[in-house]
């Protein structure tokens, strides 16, 4: 590419985006859904389809003629949910295909790794599904942006609902995936439930590679705990929840109360994997297709029409990130990463499904309403597994940029690259 002051400046007719999603490995289905959303977003940006959320988006600068008049093209890659592979595929998009923005991923490890890479290379990174506090906490980068919510927000949103449903006098037992995301989630849920008056009996770390959680579940009842919090995601969560239900925990009574299970981070795909075991179990989620605001309805409609089933929260966040990027470029009038970053920083918008949202300048984290959901008792279809219990307003989940759970690290300065 020519020397226009930043990496991969696009040509006059087209611009290339890099969609880096897990196509193999345990999160392949989630990745596939993300990719569907990206393809839909590209279609809409280029003026195809029904325009989806572009019509409900509070910003109106996108007009279906691509981005800054350039047709949107895209390349795809496989993160394999491994940070090395994800960086390799992101690099190939940057070096070979001339992608000017990288987006996607479905784990925090990958998001953090790719975010750092984009910072170095001088392109924008619009994170996909990543929930760890670190992504916009100690590992934040000036070139990286996260629309998805985080562990802290889950804890803050869940705690009041839990207190409401199960009382403030509960003894919780945490099982936590033994890696960064697990740590931040445990900490977030612990501190917000403790603030409500709950007691934490124990927090046990479980290995990432664990498949059978029986030896972790079995001692829970003995410990005197009456609530089990599963800080697990993906296969870990499916298995630990299945095991917990198998052990009949939910039929038990402890301290005179019904035993309860909580899953801080839910996704529809996971709920599907756990089957009937999710019924009645609380958790939080970034977005759900049954939301009735105009933006969500428009998105579900165009996604459903194209693919025949409703989108997942990962699909939603990826779609939104693409629009937000395009919009920021349009508003900035430039593809230069620093200009785009500036346009995104402190940007307030609405109509993209989560109500009024702010892209906070301090840490590039979106602040918006958080959904507390519950496994549905009588699902009517294989997609209808969760029901929204409460939409926690944004104020309740907002924290200071220097909140202890987000300490360390620095945003740095944005990098335009070559």
């Amino acid at each position: 590419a020519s020397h226009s002051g930043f990496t991969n400046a696009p040509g006059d007719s087209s611009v290339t985006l890099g969609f880096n999603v897990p196509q193999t490995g345990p999160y392949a289905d989630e990745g596939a859904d993300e990719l569907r959303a990206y393809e839909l977003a590209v279609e809409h940006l280029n003026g195809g389809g029904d325009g989806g959320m572009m019509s409900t988006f509070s910003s109106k600068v996108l007009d279906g003629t691509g981005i800054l008049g350039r047709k949107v093209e895209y390349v795809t890659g496989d993160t394999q949910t491994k940070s090395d592979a994800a960086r390799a595929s992101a690099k190939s998009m940057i070096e070979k295909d001339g992608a000017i923005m990288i987006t996607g991923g479905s784990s925090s490890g990958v998001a953090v790794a790719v975010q750092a890479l984009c910072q170095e290379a001088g392109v924008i990174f619009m994170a996909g599904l990543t929930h760890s506090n670190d992504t916009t906490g100690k590992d934040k980068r000036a070139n990286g942006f996260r629309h998805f919510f985080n562990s802290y927000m889950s804890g803050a949103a869940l705690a009041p609902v839990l207190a409401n449903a199960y009382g403030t006098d509960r003894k919780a037992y945490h099982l936590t995936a033994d890696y960064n995301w697990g740590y931040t989630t445990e900490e977030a849920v612990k501190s917000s439930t403790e603030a409500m008056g709950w007691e934490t009996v124990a927090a046990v770390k479980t290995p990432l590679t664990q498949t059978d959680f029986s030896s972790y579940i079995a001692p829970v009842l003995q410990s005197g705990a009456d609530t089990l919090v599963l800080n697990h995601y993906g296969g870990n969560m499916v298995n630990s929840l299945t095991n917990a239900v198998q052990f009949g925990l939910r039929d038990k009574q402890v301290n005179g109360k019904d035993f309860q299970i909580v899953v801080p981070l839910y996704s529809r795909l996971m709920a599907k994997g756990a089957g009937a075991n999710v019924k009645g179990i609380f958790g939080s989620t970034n977005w759900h297709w049954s939301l009735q605001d105009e933006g969500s309805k428009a998105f579900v409609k165009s996604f459903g029409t194209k693919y025949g089933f409703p989108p997942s929260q990962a699909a939603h966040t990826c779609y939104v990130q693409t629009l937000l990027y395009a919009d920021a470029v349009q508003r900035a009038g430039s593809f230069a990463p620093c200009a785009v970053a500036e346009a995104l920083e402190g940007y307030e918008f609405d109509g993209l499904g989560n109500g009024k949202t702010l892209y906070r300048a301090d840490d590039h984290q979106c602040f918006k309403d958080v959904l507390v959901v519950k496994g549905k008792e009588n699902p009517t279809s294989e997609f209808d597994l969760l029901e929204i219990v409460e939409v926690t307003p944004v104020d309740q989940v907002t924290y200071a940029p220097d909140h202890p759970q987000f300490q360390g690290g620095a945003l740095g300065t944005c990098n335009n690259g070559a």
Partner: protein
Amino acid sequence: MDAIILQILNGLDKGSAYALIALGLTLIFGTLGVVNFAHGALFMIGAFCAVTLSRLFSLSHEVLVPGETDFLGNPKTKDVPYIYDWFGESTGAAIIDWSVPLAILFAIPVMIAVGVIMERGLIKHFYKRPHADQILVTFGLAIVLQEIIKYYYGANPIPTPAPQAFAGSFDFGAMLGFDPNTIIYPYWRLVYFAFAALIIGAVFAFLQFTTFGMVVRAGMADRETVGLLGINIDKRFTIMFGLAAAVAGLAGVMYTPINSPNYHMGMDFLVLSFVVVVVGGMGSLPGAVLAGFVLGILESFASMREVIDIIPGINQVIIYLVAIIILLTRPRGLMGRKGVMED
């Protein structure tokens, strides 16, 4: 005390899963000497036999539900399994409910067929090839099998519950005089344990009380000479492979209610089952079973909160640590035979 009994129970159950998987592997790896990286895939295919059967039972046609609409606002339809039409709703529902146990019957012929085809079509040509080649070809096969399953069933786990009759857990503690709820154990895991014991016993009996085992061992040590003695060793190897595939497959079928099957469950178990087999000692069936139980129980103990508090991370490494200690103190694992895969 109760905590210890509890973890022993857990360990026995985990151990029976490990032992069952290792048993199938040791038939191929420890006895036929083929480094079979596709063994996990066989386990996985077994599990998907259960999934397939329950899907077959649930094959349904759509019926309009009057007055309701779906998420796009179109008229809503409801799926009614054909099996309801044929057997009535309650029998039909019971059949679907029991699909996992029924899948055993389904899986046996399927797995034997898979094993035999795999051996005749591929592995047969690799007995005399270096282990390296066996690794590459079976690894390739495992990937292909996995990808095929992924193509049809997706990457997400597929819940495959046990029959309702086995839902919930059994209070051992109450039976032993402890407080209620101290030692509970899911019914299905008890079934799994009993099933594993049965299969292990049957395989042992088959190999112990017939000359089959001896012939296969001899054939592995020296195919040529066994041929000179008029024995068609190829046929026996094929049978052995079919048997091993069936054992792996059944282990998979029965495992589905414990953990929802997904396409990579085989790979997840693969390394562990190699470790179990080798710790048990190459070529020893009792060794593999014993190692399965030893590792299962130790893993359970290492996952106790009290233990993790003393040695952080011990639950992450216990299996490997024990494997190292056993292999260093006992040159051929727990009960390995001399000269099997030692070079």
